């Protein structure tokens, strides 16, 4: 559908005189879907954060608009960052992967020191004034950039050795996340890295081995008591729904039960904004963050949920398309990474609220309350818009000679 639109625009450009190829000006090729959908989702998110937090905040005697206001600030900051990321040529990011990687590791590492703040037993935040900065969110984007740069440098020729290097590159931050512990983000990173390597050109044989390794290590971690009880309980609740074995499992089962009730109570049309007993009675724990989708489904029903999922689908399609049309492997891999990040987070988060995925603390991009997630998501989209808009542009500001594979391409392959 969008493909058709692209072709149509291409056709319109053809009759232009004096212009043999598409314009080199990136501004001409800005993707309106990519630029508009995230802010639309984010504005909707602000509205839903308010509806899901106001009764809880009221009963605590706090300003009911507390989360609303803060999320609005994150939205503005995020949009600004997205615009900034769109303006600067993405290729500058390609040249300093080591520096970028260093920053990622430093950010993740320092949070484990007393510089980081602890909340509910998890050391994953920096306190900056009244705001918290969550380096793991930034690490997602950082790792995508680093791996994309590494694969680009080797032109996608990933033999076993290079695959090993990428494996180490990815495993180090994942391990630090495990120490925080931030199970959800490490799972997102793993999936992201896997898809990225798949697209980058790792051989199916190697990928199979990696997948096998990943799955078996996951079971080892779950079974070998390397996780806290509540983590295991959350992961396994969706398997044996209804028969909680202990207190942790009960708490996780309660979460899931309340979440499913909220979604199911919505019906086709939902109960309307601001209604919803599950939401207004604060029955769904963490509703304004991880379980924000339940507020959407309860208040706007199947239609509301489907529209939201539709927006994510269109967004992912545009990301996918950006990957296909990217001027270089670096750009394409970033697009794939960002798409994997967004798509997997949506699937994992929404799936968790509906009981088809284990419970992990993964935010729903732009919807869940949380500054770091919103800002990083916007920034990621900014970079992808950048990549897509510069698919015809000659390399600028790069010190390296363009590789032979970096042929500008005007449209998806037929």
């Amino acid at each position, binding site marked *: 559908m969008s493909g058709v639109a692209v072709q149509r625009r291409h056709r319109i450009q053809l009759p232009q005189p004096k212009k043999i190829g598409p314009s080199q000006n990136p501004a001409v090729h800005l993707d309106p879907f990519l630029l508009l959908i995230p802010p639309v989702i984010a504005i909707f998110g602000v509205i839903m954060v308010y509806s899901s937090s106001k*009764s*809880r905040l009221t*009963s*605590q005697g706090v300003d009911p608009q507390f989360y609303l206001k803060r999320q609005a600030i994150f939205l503005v900051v995020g949009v600004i960052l997205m615009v900034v990321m769109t303006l600067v040529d993405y290729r500058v990011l390609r040249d300093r992967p080591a520096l970028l990687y260093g920053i990622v590791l430093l950010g993740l590492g320092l949070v484990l020191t007393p510089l980081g703040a602890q909340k509910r037993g998890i050391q994953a935040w920096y306190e900056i004034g009244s705001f918290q900065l969550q380096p793991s969110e930034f690490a997602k984007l950082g790792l995508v950039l680093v791996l994309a740069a590494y694969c680009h440098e080797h032109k*996608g020729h990933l033999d076993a050795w290079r695959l090993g290097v990428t494996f180490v590159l990815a495993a180090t931050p994942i391990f630090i996340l495990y120490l925080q512990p931030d199970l959800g983000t490490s799972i997102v990173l793993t999936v992201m890295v896997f*898809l990225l390597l*798949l*697209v*980058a*050109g790792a051989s199916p044989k190697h990928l199979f081995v990696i997948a096998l390794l990943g799955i078996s290590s996951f079971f080892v971690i779950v079974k070998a008591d390397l996780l806290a009880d509540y983590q295991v309980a959350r992961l396994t609740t969706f398997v044996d729904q209804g028969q909680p074995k202990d207190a942790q499992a009960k708490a996780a089962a309660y979460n899931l039960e*309340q979440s*499913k*009730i*909220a*979604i*199911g*109570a*919505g*019906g*086709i049309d939902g109960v309307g904004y601001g209604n919803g*007993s*599950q939401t207004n*009675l*604060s*029955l*769904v*724990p963490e509703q304004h963050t991880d379980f924000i989708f339940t507020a959407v*489904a309860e208040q706007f*029903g*199947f239609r509301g*949920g*489907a529209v939201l*999922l539709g927006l*994510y*689908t269109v967004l*992912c*399609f545009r990301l*996918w398309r950006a*990957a*296909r049309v*990217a001027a*270089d*492997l670096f750009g*394409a891999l970033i697009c*794939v990474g960002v*798409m*994997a990040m967004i*798509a*997997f987070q*949506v*699937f994992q988060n*929404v*799936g968790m609220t*509906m*009981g*088809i995925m284990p419970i992990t603390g993964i935010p729903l991009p732009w919807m869940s309350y949380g500054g770091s997630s919103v800002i990083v998501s916007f920034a990621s989209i900014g970079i992808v818009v950048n990549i897509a808009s510069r698919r015809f542009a000659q390399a600028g500001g790069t010190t390296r000679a363009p590789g032979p*594979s970096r042929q500008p391409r005007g449209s998806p*392959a037929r």
Partner: protein
Amino acid sequence: MTEGNRTRIAVVGLVVLALFGALLARLWFLTVAGHETYVAQAQQNGVRVAFTQPQRGIIWDRDGKPLVRNTTTFRATVSRGITAEQRHQVLVRLSDVIGVPKSDLERRMNSADNSPLLAAPVWDEVPETAVTYIAEHAEEFPGVEVAPFSTRVYPYGSAAAHVLGYVGSMNDKEYETHGAGDEPDYQLGDDIGKDGVESFYDAELRGSHGVESLRVDAAGRVLDTLGSQPAVPGNNLELTIDLDLQRFAEQTLADGLALQRLQPVLDRKTDEPLGHNFLAPAGAVVVMDVDTGAILATASNPTYQPEAFIGGIPADVYQQLNDKATYFPLLNRVTQGLYAPGSTFKAVTAFAISDAGVLAYPWEEILDDKGFRKFGLEGQQTTYRNFESIPGGQVQLARALQISNDVYFYDMAWRIVQLPKDLNDTVVLDDMAIQQTARRLGFDEPTGIDLAGERGGRVPDREWLEQVNKKDPVAFPYNIWLGGYTITLSVGQGDLLATPLQLATAYAAIGNGGFKVTPHVVHRIVSPQNTVVREIAPVPVDVGLDPEIRDIVMKGLSDAVMTDDGTGFKAFEGFDLGRLPIAGKTGTAETCTACEPQNTAVFTALVPANDPKYVVTVFIEKGDTGGSTAAPIAREIIEFLYCTGGAAAIRQPDPLGLDQQVTIGCPPLVAVPAAAPPGSDIPAFEEIEPGSTNAGVIPVDGTGALVPGLPPPASNAPGTGVTTPDSTASPRRRRSRGRRPSRDAQTRRADEPCAAGCGP
């Protein structure tokens, strides 16, 4: 970028599309397919049904004085869902705010009768400032709830404790018997009456729970009320008890016991002191209307404070109330104490011997009593003796009752034993006549009084003996009913056991001419709107007492008190028996034959003797004789009864400020120049001023005429001359052989302003 890269991107795109498709399918499944289920769950989710406690009914005495009221306090509870650490912190803060040590809160929290399913109560009387503070700082008190809570108040302390009973949390067993939650008015954590009328009339008193349907959030905070049905207060009880008489009876019983404990026990034969005093640990008093069975007063000593049960009784205190060493204060001896009634039972035997036909009209058969008699076949005779083997001389039935002659009744019992038998030695005519008559008069089964836990006593007969022998051959080695058993039964000894109330009921039947009444302590059940729900008026049952024998028995009982060789005479010396004739029977039940003479001392009186209105029964454990220990207590109660009945009591404003008058004393009913018919108003007493020095005697002027303004003395009034306070007191001192302190109105008022019972 290679084509390979693009292909792989396409694959990734398809995977993402598949994932999103799965999400959409699942969303459809939940929101559309499962909608109804989840909506139902959501509706229940935030709704909690809460029961509100109704006010328990009030219990008044017959004049409307509240014996039990309610007061509303604030009770703090702590949820059982919080962690031990949180609980610790919460208790520390609560102890700070309420101002009681944490250990007290913990003790209340761990009280045995708290329901494990409900939040644990930690304090029942949270001051209002603390209530406000806790409400305003809810976040500092996780799991704490403070709610109004109604508790019982006993304005008169232990007065009528055994009648009222007490209230406590429903235990598991009571919960089960009341439908385990199916009965809406019996929910876990509810209070329930545990004894006395609180238990017997629990269904009336408890009222109906209110139901509140509340919307709550995940933290259990109440957001609003969806619907509510108010609690219905319980019905109130109006007792037949007269609080003044009740308190006086309790005090008199307590005093009488205390006095008895000062008396040395004398050897039976030599009259030498044995070196220790009577134990007199316990006693019982019952005053009952002989026509209706309405109980005016009933005292059981030792007693207890029902207040102790409010908010859960500590286990050690409860243990003390149920301990042998303290003589079981919780036991209501009037309905639960089992005693051998002793010679008071002879009145029952008197009817039995006529029923069995062993004494024939005109009933005046005279026996010559030498103090003992031998019964049985030649060679295996057993000697049965009078009390202290005193010979009775020429005795017929009335005389036998008057002087409590044993041999007369032994002889009559022996005649019953010897009723003709057939060849197989089985009885043709029933030789269980005494038992049958006893049962007709209410022995061997509970009287049916409206108090919880009444016992039925025991009338031994052949069947009973066979049964217990079969059950426990060691304790009861014989299974053949011997003639001797009937002989001992005839004088109220042996295996016969009866409660004081059973004896009172039997005497009431004798007094009212043969109607067995059902004793009751509740007069009316009154709704909260002050309408009478039910009147308790059990219909007396005609048990068919031979009226001629009844007259003889009444004569015997009257003579026992009113003639100077009657066994009850000494206790009533100086009492104006002419104005208020009294019939009575003493009983001295030997609890064991070989051991020292500490007996169950019994006295039961019918007043007035000519047309009995009340029966007054007194039992004292381990006392002296019925005449010396029990009868004086009965006398004081009768005096009080008739002075309150005549509205001549010395009254003062209620010390509790309940806008009532209480009787604090009463002039003794002594020989006075003028007397009104007993039972009616005694106008002569009306002018007595509480402060006057000659309170207790009829004010007369120097000529012996009554103070002007009062009706003239009745012409048929017995008694002569003016009685001074001195002459009032002295005969009573004599009666108690100088050991009993003078208890006339003057000294009572001077020394014990609260003689009518300020509570122990």
